[in-house]
C-alpha cells in the first residue's frame, strides 16, 4: 500500500490551457487507451489538437517553446475542464507530461475526483482571477506559480490570488489520504455490517 503523502503546496512553471468545456477525449484521444498501463501517455496529451493530419504543429500551448521548462508544471484552465469520459487516462497523461496541479474556473466532477485520487490538486479561482493569471503568465511565463492547498492561495510573481478546494478533497490532500484505498480498508467490519443490512445482498431471502 502506498505511503501517506500530504500535498500542501505545489510549485511549478505555469502553462495556460485556454478554453471552456475541454473534454477528456481531447486531453487524451481514445486510441491511446489501447494499453494495459498508463506509461507513455504523457507524450500524447492533447495529441489531436497539437498536430494536423500531416503531423505539423498547430501551435498548441503544450508545444509552445515558452512552456518547455523542465520540472513540475501547473496548468491554468477555464470552465468545466475535463468533462465527458471518466477516463483516468486524462489526468494520468497530464501528470506524465508534468502537470502536478491545476488552477481553473471549474472542473468536471469525475475528472476532479480522478485528480484527487492521484494527489493532483484542482483549485478553483474566479473568472476574473483566472483571466488575470493567464494574462500575467502569457506575458512572462518564466516564473514559478505556487498553489497552496492549506492557505488557499495561488501566487505568481508576488501577486496572491484566492483559490478554493471543496473541504473533503482539501482534507484528503492535506492529510495525504487522497489515495482512498487505505482509508476505505480500515472500515472492513463496518462494510460487512452495511452489506448485511442490504436486502439485495442476500437476494431478498428473509
Amino acid at each position, binding site marked *: *500500500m*502506498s505511503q501517506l503523502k500530504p500535498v500542501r503546496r505545489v510549485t511549478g512553471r505555469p502553462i495556460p490551457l485556454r*478554453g471552456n*468545456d475541454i*473534454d477528456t*477525449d*481531447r486531453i487524451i*484521444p*481514445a*486510441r491511446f*487507451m*489501447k*494499453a*494495459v*498501463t*498508463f506509461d507513455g501517455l504523457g507524450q500524447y496529451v492533447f*495529441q*489531436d*489538437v497539437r498536430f494536423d*493530419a500531416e503531423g505539423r504543429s498547430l501551435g498548441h500551448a503544450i508545444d509552445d517553446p515558452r512552456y518547455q521548462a523542465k520540472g513540475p508544471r501547473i496548468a491554468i484552465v*477555464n*470552465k*468545466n475542464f475535463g*468533462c*465527458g*469520459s*471518466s477516463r*483516468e487516462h486524462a*489526468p494520468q497523461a497530464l501528470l506524465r507530461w508534468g502537470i502536478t496541479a491545476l488552477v481553473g474556473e*471549474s472542473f*468536471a*466532477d*469525475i475528472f476532479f*475526483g*480522478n485528480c484527487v*485520487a*492521484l494527489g493532483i490538486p484542482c483549485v478553483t479561482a474566479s*473568472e476574473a482571477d483566472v483571466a488575470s493569471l493567464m494574462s500575467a503568465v502569457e506575458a512572462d511565463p518564466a516564473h514559478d506559480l505556487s498553489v497552496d492547498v492549506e492557505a488557499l492561495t495561488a501566487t505568481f510573481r508576488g501577486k496572491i490570488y484566492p483559490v478554493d478546494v471543496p473541504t*473533503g*478533497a482539501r*482534507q*484528503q490532500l492535506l*492529510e495525504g489520504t487522497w*489515495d*482512498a*484505498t487505505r*482509508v*476505505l480498508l480500515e*472500515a472492513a467490519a*463496518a*462494510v460487512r455490517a*452495511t*452489506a448485511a443490512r*442490504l*436486502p*439485495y445482498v442476500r*437476494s*431478498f*431471502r*428473509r
Partner: protein
Amino acid sequence: MGRTLLDKVWEAHTVRELPSGQTQLFIGLHLVHEVTSPQAFQMMREQGLTVAYPERTVATADHIIPTDTDVRPFRDEQAEGMMAAIERNCREFGIRLFDRSSGHQGIVHVIGPELGLTQPGMTIACGDSHTSTHGAFGAVSFGIGTSQVRDVLATQCLAIQKPKVRRVSVDGALRPGVYAKDVILHIIRTLGVKGGVGYAYEYGGEVFRRMTMEERMTVCNMTIEGGARCGYVNPDEATFAYLRGRECVPSGSAFDDAVVWWKSMAADADALYDDTVRLDAGAIPPVVTWGINPGQAIGVDERIPPPDAFAADERETAVDAYAYMDLKPGTPIIGTRIDVAFIGSCTNGRLSDLREAAKIAKRGKVKPHVKALVVPGSQAVAKAAEAEGLHEIFRSAGFEWRLPGCSMCLAMNPDKLSGRQICASSSNRNFKGRQGSPSGRTLLMSPAMVAAAAIEGVVVDVRALLAGTH
C-alpha cells in the same frame, strides 16, 4: 420532510462518514470492462490486495471488441492484449466475465439491465461515465476512474461526496417523431453541458412515467453530458415488470419482497429538492447536434445559431465549433450531407431503438455514398432483433449488421471515421475526434433520425418521412 431516492439509497449504503466529510459508500454492483480496468488490477497485484466481494463485480468486453468478427486472436494486437488481460484478470481475481462465448456479451450498460443485475435502490459503479444509464431503474450509479475501480475491487466502497439533487420534470405529451434521445438532448441544450456539475438529476413528470425502461435508459445514459454524474427515475410498475423473470432477479416470494423494498426507496411525495426545473414535452422537436459538445444542439428545423445567441462563456466554444464542423451560423442543419450513419451504443443500441430505426429503414435504401452500420448493444439484443427479422430489414436497405460492442461511439475498435467524414450517429458524444478520426465530425440524433439520414444521404426531419410527405 420527505426524502428523495438519492437520500434513501445514500443512507442505506453509508458505511461511515469519513473525516474528509465524504461518505464511505458501499457499492452494490461493480461493472468492469477491458479499457479502464487493467491498471486497477495491476495496482491490486502491486499493493497485495484481494477483491473484497468478487461476486458483486461483473465484467464484459465492449470497447475494443471488433464487430465484424469473433475470430481470436484479434487482428489488432493491442486489442488482443487488452482482451487477454481482462480474461486473465477475471480468472485470477475470481470475477464473472461475459465474453462472446457466454451469449451475454455486450455493452456494459446494456447487459447490466438485461441480465437483471441492475436493480432499484442499488449503488452501482463502473469505470465508464455512462454508468448513469442504470439510474433508469432507480439505482444511484456513477462513472469512476481507474484508481476508484481499484478502490471498489479492494473494498467494495467509494469515498465520495453526496451530490445535490435537481428534479427535472417534463410534462405534457411528446409529439410524433420525438424520442427519448430528443428529450435528453433538449434537456442538455436547455440546462447546458456544465449545468449539472455537483448534481444528480432526478427525472420525473408525465413523460418519464410513460416511458419504457429502454427509453428511460437513453435519457439517464446522457446525464453525464449535462455535467451531472448521476441521473435517475424513481422505480415504478414499469421497472418491476421489466425486471420480473430476468436471470439475476429473485423469483417467487423473494421477488414480491424485492418489490416492497424497491417501492420503499422511491422518493416521498413531499421530498425536498435542491433545485427543480420544469420543461414542456410539447415544445421538444427532434434534436440534432451541430457542434463539438452535446449542448450545441438545435431542433432539426432550426438554423445554426450565431455567436451572439450564446452566453459569454459558450461563445468561444461555438466559434471553435463552426470552424471544426465547417458549418456556418445561419445555415439550416437539414440538408447537411452525411458520409456515415451509425446506429448503436449504450445510448441507443437496444431492441426498441433498432425497431424504430428499422421502421424507417424499410422505406428506402441507404444512399450509395453513405456507409451505414447497425451495431446491436448486446448479444441478447442481436438475438432478439434477428428473431424479429430486423437484421434482414437493415441488410436489404443497405446497412451492415454487426456484432455487439461500443464500436463507432468511441472508435477503439476498427470501426472509425476517416478524414473529415460526417457521421449521423445515435451515440452520445460529438467531441472533436470522438469517432476515431482526429478531424471527423459527429451529428448526434435519435436512431430513427440516423436511419432517415442514411436513406436520404443528408440530415432530414424524420417527422416528414413518418408523415409520408418527404
